[in-house]
């Protein structure tokens, strides 16, 4: 009995040590930022503000989960920001046609999947670089979003849709539950399933993956589709928070999503990365945006500081990993 407890304990300790190893650098950055903001403003470390931060970071965090998969493969998806906008508009239009909440939700997710699928098929089957494919679809999707309203925003008044962004369940905003659920989903899928292991293997060594019988093309298409669906969820949350679908919604959010993933230790070369890291990366971005607002840092300085913090955090992380060998 004691024997087994000891082994579980030491196994737990082992896991903790491994986690600290992996996320040490980036976690230190997050904690350091929180400490600095807490010292400088007594309202930063309040429940109200922390839920505030989680809500604000949700859109980028979920898009970053999808982006992490894509980067893991050694690919990139620059169309995410545009997919976020199209998803919001698709939902708004479906609701305006009177489809009702659930069909509109399904339609929006399918629209996201379709846009991701197009990215995946063009990349995998036509052997085009994903950078170029998604630069092109970024423009195409951004054009599509303006077609139904000729560039004007579309209002959303469906009570269920807007409840996603403004209501709470068990004392926590629904939007935070969704982030937690999608984090767990992606984390388990990546770290506990064959699908996840295939993604790591393919990103790390494409030849080896091919020889070991992984259908790399299919995997790629599946992952771009997943990224599209994640961006669509982001679009749903964004449009529900704003009570409207904006044609310029999500502009340049793909860069925030890439920053979150890379901050979290995802390697742009592929093969390395985790959802835990990406979540921490997204939190760093959210904490910085909110914390600097709380300190009334002027906007242009915020841009500069944000860039510098990303550089320092990545440097800390790279240095920590080099030290371990």
């Amino acid at each position: 009995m004691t024997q087994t407890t000891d082994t579980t304990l030491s196994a737990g300790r082992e896991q903790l040590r491994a986690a600290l190893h992996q996320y040490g650098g980036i976690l230190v950055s997050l904690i350091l930022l929180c400490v600095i903001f807490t010292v400088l403003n007594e309202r930063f470390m309040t429940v109200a503000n922390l839920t505030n931060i989680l809500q604000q970071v949700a859109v980028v965090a979920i898009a970053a989960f999808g982006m992490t998969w894509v980067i893991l493969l050694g690919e990139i998806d620059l169309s995410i920001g545009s997919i976020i906008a199209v998803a919001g508009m698709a939902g708004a239009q479906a609701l305006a046609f009177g489809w009702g909440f659930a069909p509109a939700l399904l339609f929006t997710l399918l629209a996201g999947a379709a846009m991701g699928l197009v990215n995946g098929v063009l990349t995998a089957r036509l052997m085009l670089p994903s950078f170029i494919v998604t630069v092109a679809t970024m423009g195409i999707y951004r054009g599509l979003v303006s077609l139904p309203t000729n560039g004007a925003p579309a209002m959303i008044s469906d009570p269920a849709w807007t409840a996603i962004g403004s209501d709470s369940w068990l004392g926590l905003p629904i939007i935070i539950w969704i982030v937690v659920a999608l984090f767990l989903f992606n984390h388990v899928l990546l770290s506990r399933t064959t699908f996840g292991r295939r993604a790591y293997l393919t990103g790390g060594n494409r030849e080896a993956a091919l020889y070991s019988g992984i259908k790399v093309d299919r995997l790629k298409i599946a992952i771009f589709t997943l990224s599209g669906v994640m961006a669509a969820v982001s679009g749903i949350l964004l449009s529900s928070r704003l009570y409207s679908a904006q044609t310029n919604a999500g502009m340049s959010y793909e860069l925030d999503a890439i920053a979150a993933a890379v901050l979290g230790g995802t390697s742009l070369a592929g093969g390395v990365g985790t959802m835990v890291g990406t979540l921490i990366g997204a939190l760093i971005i959210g904490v910085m945006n909110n914390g600097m607002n709380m300190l009334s840092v002027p906007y242009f300085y915020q841009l500069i500081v944000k860039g510098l913090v990303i550089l320092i955090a990545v440097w800390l992380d790279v240095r920590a990993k080099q030290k371990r060998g």
Partner: protein
Amino acid sequence: MTFKKALSALLTTVACGLGGAAHADGIGASLLTQQHPFYIELADAMKAQAEARGVPLEISIANQDLNKQLADVEDFIVKGVDVIVISPVDSQGVMAAIAKADAAGIKVVTVDVPAADAKVTSHIGTDNYTGGVKAGELMAEVLGGKGKVAIIDYPTVQSVVARVEGFRKALEAHPEIEIVAQQTGITRAEALAVAQNMLQANPDISGIFGFGDDAALAAAVAVKSAGLQDQVKVIGFDGMEEARNAVDTNPVMAGVIQQFPDQMGKTAVDTAAMVIEGQDVPAEQPIVPGVYVRK
């Protein structure tokens, strides 16, 4: 150890240095952008007036992103400001931010762009319709009561729609003036292409009305490159420094309707300060634009 000591020393220093910046009372202002001369003037006027009145003022810049504007307003609410001034990124989409402030019991004043479908304590903005009428009257005067006129517009923005309506209304009094074209040119580059196309299609145009400075300045360039500078007069709207200089130096630019962002910023801060003091403020405070022509 030394690292920790150094860090805590650093933190204390920074905390002492910046401690004063973390106040929570006063006005929180969320502005649309800080990359347009109109908003730079607006923000400068707000800061100056806040200082003059001794009211704390904090400004966040939404950078044309409604989601950022909502986050900025949420942060103001958590900080506990007394009143929030918003220049909405979008008339309709700003509803979410106003609803959150409302739920927190914080009053909202809008400036420049009005909010649709949401009640605010006061709105301060240019009387765009009257400005459009003034532009139309100026156009009729410049053309001597007859000629063909083209309009460069931006139909998804309500303030621009009001300008064009006013412009058309004023020209109704002049039956010999005909509006032959109306097209959209939002950025300066788009407006340039649109103006060139309109001049190609209607070489006998004698007047162009641009919904903003950018559209008008682009139209003036198009007129010059088409060699029509003796025939076509351009009138703009906004009246920032660049356009006023063009009116002074370029004969094609007949005039510009001038908005007063400085008055708007001053009035916004005055209104917010009155709200804090518990005074009643008017729900609508239109700022009538002026006409700027060559001196």
